[in-house]
């Protein structure tokens, strides 16, 4: 099996894309990335109590031309649908989410997962017109920079789905 995605490679992509703020609730799949971010003084780390706060914070930051990323578990996306409805479907504000697909089976497409919460994530993002890529193995991280540019140039929300725990 291929190597899992590397936290340092994702962090490098975020830096190259000009991300300044990282808003997050803890997530097992992205813990390896967040550990690196918290120790890196070039990022401002904002812990939140609930994920929809993060959607709003990142959306408001974009008005100041500040680039931000919300790091959350997939359940946080499900919990944030009303905030995403406004930011994504109504206002088309730029928003970058890194979403850990906790409990997704290795090598299985999210839409074919036995877990309901995983299975519905991509269809939900499609309904909200949120572009998404999956990062499941080493090398997949290279897609991230282009997706962030899409978020800010369109503008629109995008999601980077983490299919395997970042190391």
């Amino acid at each position, binding site marked *: 099996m291929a190597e899992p995605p590397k936290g340092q490679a994702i962090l490098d992509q975020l830096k190259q894309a000009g991300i300044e703020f990282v808003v997050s609730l803890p997530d097992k799949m992205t813990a390896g990335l967040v550990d690196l971010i918290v120790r890196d003084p070039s990022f401002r780390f*904002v812990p939140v*109590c609930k994920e*929809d706060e993060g959607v*709003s914070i990142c959306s408001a*930051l974009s*008005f*100041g031309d500040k680039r931000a990323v919300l790091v959350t578990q997939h359940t946080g996306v499900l919990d944030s649908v009303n905030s995403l409805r406004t930011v994504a479907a109504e206002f088309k504000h730029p928003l970058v989410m890194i979403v850990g697909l906790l409990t997704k089976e290795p090598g299985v497409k999210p839409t074919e997962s036995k877990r309901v919460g995983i299975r519905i994530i991509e269809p939900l993002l499609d309904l909200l017109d949120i572009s998404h890529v999956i990062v499941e193995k080493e090398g997949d991280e290279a897609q991230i920079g282009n997706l962030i540019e899409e978020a800010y140039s369109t503008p629109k929300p995008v999601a980077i789905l983490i299919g395997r725990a970042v190391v």
Partner: protein
Amino acid sequence: MVRPECLKVLAAHRTNEIVVSIFKPAFEWRVISPSDLNYTFINAMGQIASHGLGLALAFPERRIIVLDGDGSLLMNLGCLVTIAHVAPRNLIHFVCDNGVYETTGGQPTPGSGQISLAGFARAAGYPLVHEFDDLVEFERALPELLTAEGPVFADLKVVQGTEPYPEEWEAVFSKERQRAFKRAALSSL
């Protein structure tokens, strides 16, 4: 305090602050204090203070005034902890607390008259917390509230006014308004 009267007092003290509002107070505020620095691009109940925090981080050189509601704050109480933890010095968090869900017909908010929103803010760690039910006292305190090191919290005990304010949804959400806000907010002070 009658809410529009309270907002008129606040408007008289406003200089170049960004003011964040949603729903009823937003429709009143846009008439009472029209400005490109009015931020109304939310449309998700409970999220106003979180937008305020994002703006406080995006524009550290500006003061950000949030006009929250009690029903809205109760929907997102965790934001008090998040804001107190981040501790933006430029954030002023007012709650227009009328004890009811006004938009849906005046049903009481849970715990109305029994809970203390100021107590929640104090316990969350806001360094400066007030409660006002008298317009004269509110006006007297405003200069300090608007210049103190934040985050500042004030629970404004209000009732709705009788004067009608047009509910122009397109006007508060439009792309043109969003562009105007961004231009104004990014311009130098």
